[in-house]
């Protein structure tokens, strides 16, 4: 009832802030499911009316703790309903939620806690509480820590620790005494208030807090909805880090605008099972997730019986031939259509079911380039997989592939209301309502990235193809030159390498050098299975990575890439001449990858300088010992004698047919 006055105020126009959107859903379709979470083996649900009630209680509870307009609220944890509600609760009070990556170690959190001057933090469980307690000394501003799951916290007696249950109870009392409080706070909000601060992953330098307004995120959400007709009857499984812009767009902004149901998995390890149970209609995953799924399917198919295996391969060949065309509504021969129908019955349908993709209307991927085979695989079995392009600074909404105009190597035309142009240097510039307001406390960085005309400099290099679809080549600053003058786009090469299931990560070197060399990380699952089937014994990652047979396998993969590169005059000179297989996996805990798993090229080159030198000095092998950091913060050493191999290089083919 507290909502009534505010509701009448906003009848005039469509809601323009997230709290107003929540109120509208609660009012117009209060009984529709807003959120689900699997708890103790059973899916528990909340309707929009219930969510509005919980959020109101949380907001008042926060206000009681001293949360004020303009304050920032840190949110740390896996995707839990109450953590999403905390975002809205902070927004009601005119505050700014700041989600942090939940798998970051304590020391990594210090920077953000400091930078955003966090006074109140809402965290998921004991693990996160412990991390914040560890760094509390370094963050004097931190006054209150609220936790969602009380398990294991009974003996924590600190007075600044509060269970969310207590805070909610406090908030409910507050709302009974002051029934107009929440409505009043919501009425004070403006669409141009900052609605969220997301920290950039920091491939370069310190992370920056990107301030986005309600208006920007709502515009971004509407743009995507228009292109893909997202509706209120949909379901989405929210399992990607809440601190990532993609999750915020999909699980928060679009869910609030479109009003579909957000489902939180039981735990990070049950995502696949939960996905099968929910059968989401919208699905969103970075390419590596699709890749892992495909790798698992392939491994299981290799282990399957002969009949199943040959059936799978036969119908997959049919799907490769005509599956994507059928999905795009293009003309296909009647026999192929019939075969595909049969395949759908026998293979694709059951496979989609196993993957939890039976009810998918649209699946998205973004964040990195996706391999053509991988992309085509999903489309050919009838999953409408699309790519889009965007970054934290643009609410992840710049370009999106519309239905039936799907190309694996482009990211589609600009979204509605978005203006994209290519600078002289090849850099992609973007303008539109979804642009960031500013970098938090960094006017220098804001001025640097948004020019006088209001274009945001993405730092990516790309161009438009003949159909007006944007093609991304690489990070603009990563594109270098070989000593011979040829263009060298390391990401482009690495992506080509990573399309092989056996290669998990690759790092290419070549800027200012006379040839290109590469570090390879094998994929433990795929290569392990490959080795087992060949009866090659191995003791662990380091041992497996050093096997001559594995080197042979990787060599074949890279030479295949070289052959493909030779066919394209633009990149023929960047064929890979020498490579080695790293003895340890590149890991964000060792600072080699960002939390979003992008390679920190400069850092890797520095850390493994000995290996880079060995690659270019023609040595046949090189010893290296590396410090590794375990999850609990301890460190250990991994050492190995790494072999280095030369690769076959192909003569460039001009005007390839």
């Amino acid at each position, binding site marked *: 009832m507290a909502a009534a006055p505010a509701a009448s105020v906003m009848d005039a126009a469509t809601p323009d802030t997230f709290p107003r959107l929540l109120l509208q859903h609660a009012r117009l379709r209060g009984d529709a499911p807003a959120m689900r979470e699997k*708890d103790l*083996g059973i899916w528990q649900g909340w309707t929009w009316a219930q969510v509005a009630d919980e959020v109101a209680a949380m907001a008042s509870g926060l206000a009681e703790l001293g949360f004020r307009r303009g304050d920032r609220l840190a949110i740390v944890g896996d995707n839990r309903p109450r953590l999403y509600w905390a975002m809205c609760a902070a927004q009601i009070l005119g505050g700014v939620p700041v989600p942090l990556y939940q798998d970051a170690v304590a020391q990594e959190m210090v920077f953000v806690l400091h930078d955003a001057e966090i006074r109140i933090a809402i965290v998921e469980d004991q693990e996160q509480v412990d991390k914040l307690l560890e760094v509390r000394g370094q963050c004097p501003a931190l006054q209150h820590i609220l936790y969602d799951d009380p398990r*294991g916290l009974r*003996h924590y007696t600190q007075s600044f620790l509060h269970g969310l249950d207590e805070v909610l109870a406090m908030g409910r009392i507050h709302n009974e005494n002051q029934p107009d409080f929440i409505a009043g706070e919501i009425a004070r909000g403006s669409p141009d208030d900052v609605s969220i601060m997301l920290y950039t992953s920091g491939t370069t330098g310190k992370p920056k807090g990107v301030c986005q307004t309600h208006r920007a995120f709502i515009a971004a959400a509407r743009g995507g909805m228009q292109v893909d007709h997202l509706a209120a009857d949909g379901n989405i499984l929210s399992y990607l880090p809440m601190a990532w812009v993609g999750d915020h767009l999909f699980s928060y902004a679009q869910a609030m605008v479109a009003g579909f149901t957000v489902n939180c998995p*039981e*735990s990070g*390890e049950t995502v696949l*099972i939960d996905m099968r149970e929910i059968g989401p209609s919208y699905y969103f995953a970075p390419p590596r997730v699709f890749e892992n799924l495909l790798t698992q399917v392939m491994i299981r198919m290799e282990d399957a019986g002969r009949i199943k295996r040959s059936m799978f391969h036969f119908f997959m060949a049919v799907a490769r031939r005509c599956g994507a065309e059928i999905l795009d509504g293009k003309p296909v021969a009647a026999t192929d259509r019939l075969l595909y129908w049969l395949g759908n019955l026998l293979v694709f349908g059951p496979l989609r079911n196993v993957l939890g993709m039976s009810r998918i209307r649209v699946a998205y991927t973004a964040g990195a380039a996706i391999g053509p085979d991988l992309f085509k695989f999903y489309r050919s079995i009838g999953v409408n997989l699309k790519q889009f392009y965007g970054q934290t600074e643009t609410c992840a909404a710049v370009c999106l592939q519309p239905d039936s105009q799907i190309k694996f190597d482009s990211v589609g035309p600009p979204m509605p209301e978005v203006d994209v142009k290519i600078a002289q240097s090849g850099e992609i510039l973007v303008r539109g309502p979804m642009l960031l307001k500013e970098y938090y406390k960094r006017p220098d960085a804001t001025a640097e990235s948004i020019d006088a005309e209001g274009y945001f400099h993405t730092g990516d290099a790309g161009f438009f193809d003949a159909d007006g679809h944007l093609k991304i080549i690489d990070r603009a600053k990563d594109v270098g030159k070989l000593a011979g003058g040829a263009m060298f786009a390391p990401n482009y090469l690495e992506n080509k390498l990573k399309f092989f299931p056996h290669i998990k990560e690759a790092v290419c070197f070549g800027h200012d050098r006379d040839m290109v060399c590469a570090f390879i990380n094998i994929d433990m699952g795929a290569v392990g299975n490959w080795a087992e089937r060949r009866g090659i014994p191995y003791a662990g990652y380091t041992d497996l990575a050093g096997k001559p047979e594995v080197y042979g396998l990787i060599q074949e993969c890279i030479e295949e890439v070289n052959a493909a590169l030779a066919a394209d005059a633009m990149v023929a000179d960047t064929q890979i001449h020498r490579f080695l297989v790293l003895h340890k996996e590149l890991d964000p805990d060792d600072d080699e990858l960002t939390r979003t798993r992008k390679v920190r090229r400069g850092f890797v080159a520095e850390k493994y300088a000995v290996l880079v030198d060995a690659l270019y000095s023609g040595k046949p092998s090189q010893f290296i010992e590396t410090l590794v950091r375990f999850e609990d913060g301890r460190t250990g050493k991994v050492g190995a004698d790494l072999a280095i191999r030369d690769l076959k290089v192909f003569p460039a083919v001009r005007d390839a047919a």
Partner: protein
Amino acid sequence: MRQIGDVILDLRNISLAFGGVKALTDISFDVREHEIRAIIGPNGAGKSSMLNVINGVYRPQHGEIIFRGEHRHGMNTHMAAASGIARTFQNIALFKGMSVLDNLMAGRNLKMKCNFIQHALWWGPARREELAHRARVEEVIDFLEIEHIRKTPVGRLPYGLQKRVELARALAAEPEILLLDEPMAGMNVEEKQDMCRFILDVNDQLGTTIVLIEHDMGVVMDISDRVVVLDYGRKIGDGVPDDVKNNPEVIAAYLGTQH
């Protein structure tokens, strides 16, 4: 806060022999409510035999067992289980072909009241009963963080997880005393840390009294309240970890001779 209570299980002058082999000779010790009691000793010292005496697998020739003030001379396994003593085994004893969930439901078998026919029909009281038990089992699953393997057949799980499932199965019976036979044998450091945390959590949050046999001295000294030391079937030490650590006889027999 957990508070150690009165003696719940008292073992007096227990002697057990298999033919001419004396497995246990005149052993007495007690277990207090809510404590973690460790039994340590070299191989063949009689540790597992001791556990088997407690839960009635073996009947000692001499001595008596007093459980909650009741004298039990001839304890058998069924009585032990019914009176709230659950255990795990040194070599895992689960139904390998059944899912984790089914194994845990089996752990609640003793608490089910309906008969076979009712369960087969799964109607009325039997159905309500199963739902109630399933809810309890789900709490255990949540407690030990094994949601992701709920429906996986136990035989397909790695060893460390099977050990955790076994602990879960024992916990599903809601025991008062939990007997753990080398819960950490064959685990790597990380798995051991997890297991320690789970044992401490069980003890702390559920108040379960725990008797455990363990070889890892670090673990024993860290988590137990009191330790009994056996050697060749005799008791050579008993007390808090620090006392046991400094007991010369224990050092000689087990921890290594001092130089």
